[in-house]
């Protein structure tokens, strides 16, 4: 094995003291993503206070988030279904960090919620109205919706999922 691997490691202070020359660059990258046929309809459903899914009429699988095709059969999923806004917690975490890795005062509880009447189909969301120690795997939860006039056609039109007592 080569005994002397190459590489010149630097510390953050080396940059602060300008020990090495650097170039800074801020890209002006902005995006306007097409939500697509399936998600645009899903988002309108959320604005109306509904969770929509698509059903494959070949294998019967319900997809949420909805798609225009069934991944398993690779056929078009043309049937739209309204799903219950209740489900079970497949997995969850207790997060103490924000997106930018700074620490949160109150932890957030992200979870994968499996929506009722599907076969393990679900999406990422947050659990609310629950203390971290009260959350369990398989726990039954229900969506808490934002007020109709505040909904925008976004995943946050569901404020969070709360435990069904």
């Amino acid at each position: 094995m080569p005994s002397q691997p190459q590489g010149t490691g630097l510390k953050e202070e080396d940059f602060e003291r300008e020990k090495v020359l650097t170039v800074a660059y801020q890209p002006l990258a902005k995006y306007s993503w097409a939500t697509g046929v399936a998600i645009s309809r899903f988002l309108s459903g959320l604005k109306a206070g509904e969770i929509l899914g698509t059903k494959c009429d070949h294998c019967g699988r319900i997809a949420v988030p909805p798609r225009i095709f069934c991944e398993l059969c690779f056929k078009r999923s043309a049937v739209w279904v309204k799903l219950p806004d209740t489900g079970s917690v497949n997995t969850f975490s207790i997060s103490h960090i924000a997106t930018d890795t700074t620490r949160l005062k109150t932890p957030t509880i992200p979870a994968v919620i499996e929506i009722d009447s599907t076969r393990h189909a679900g999406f990422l969301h947050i659990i609310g109205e629950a203390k971290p120690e009260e959350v369990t795997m398989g726990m039954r939860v229900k969506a808490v919706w934002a007020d109709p006039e505040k909904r925008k056609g976004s995943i946050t039109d569901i404020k969070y999922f709360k435990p069904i007592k």
Partner: protein
Amino acid sequence: MQVKKRVAVVGAGMTKFMRRAQETGKELAFEAAKQALDSAEMRMQDVDSVALGSAPDAFDGVHMKGEYLLDGAGGWQKPYSRNFVGGGTGVFSVIHGWWHVASGLFDTCLVVAEEKMSTCLPHPQTAFLTIFDNMIERPLGPNLIWIFALEMHRYMQKHKIPKEQIAQVAVKNKRNALDHPSAQIAKAVTLRDIMNSEVMAWPVQRLDISPVSDGACAVLLASEDVARKITDSPVWIDGVGWNLDTTYWTNRDLYFPRYVANAARMAYGMAGITNPRKQIDFAEPYDPFDYKELHHMEGLLLCRKGEAPKLTKEGVTERDGNLPICPSGGLLGVGNPIAAAGLMKVCELFWQLRGEAGKRQVAGDPRTAVAQAWGDLMQIGTVVVMRS
């Protein structure tokens, strides 16, 4: 399946793995490529093709990163191509290179993998933000650690694994890495250190996680006739496998990486491995987090589902155990420059199977080993089986 030419690894090289390298990505790629060439006493004109792996352009901050790295990776006026499958890239690069030689199209292929994450600010993790669905996940303000925490928690809960058994992997790998000259954060930590480290997103704690790194690795591949002229101890790539699952990660049960198992079956099938636990002498599964080593041991069918923690607890996976796992020190100890990390594991297989791993050498004259990488959105398993 018909393979035209048997393929061997005949040389390997790697840089140090560092938190912040002064070298540019091109220079890192060069240092690794040069060592691989020198170790086989080969010149650039003997190299017929070049396969380069590197993960998101957003880390190095250079668009068209493959083209950018080309000259440092030896690609000047050669058939050169780049592959990218997230964290799976390191092992996938070898498979990409293997195609060049196994097909009979080329006699030799230089495989290089590079990453320079330190360029990306405020923190390379910010570049991972786009891994989440931009429409229905980003508005929730996610952090990359969430995904790992959710998968880890599901795995722990499904098999009732206490956190201590998982943390033991970090202790083992960071200690193994003390014997690796390229290691970034090798350290003799205790179980208590891991368990007392800051909780990021339960159950993930700070010391469960591999670091952000800059680094590069390279291996030289040759067809059988040419390999035997280059070296007395070629290491054969006898099996390759790769498999991916859907980006709708919330529609899969995360406790078992079925795509890793699919890739492993493909590679084992090619290599004639019918009983992995008995026929594999040691393994380098991908360990960006400690629980991932266990998750992937099961995905590689080296033990039953839920059994990996028990093997760790019993010392089976230590370097002097019956099935050494990550004798290199893994990503947890050596470092994690995203694309290069998997290739570091292949380099380890090469050195171990030739008896050249120095203080890291596993005993008992190992003959057959498996390396595996993983990545994208919990999606890909890339596997190679190598034999001396």
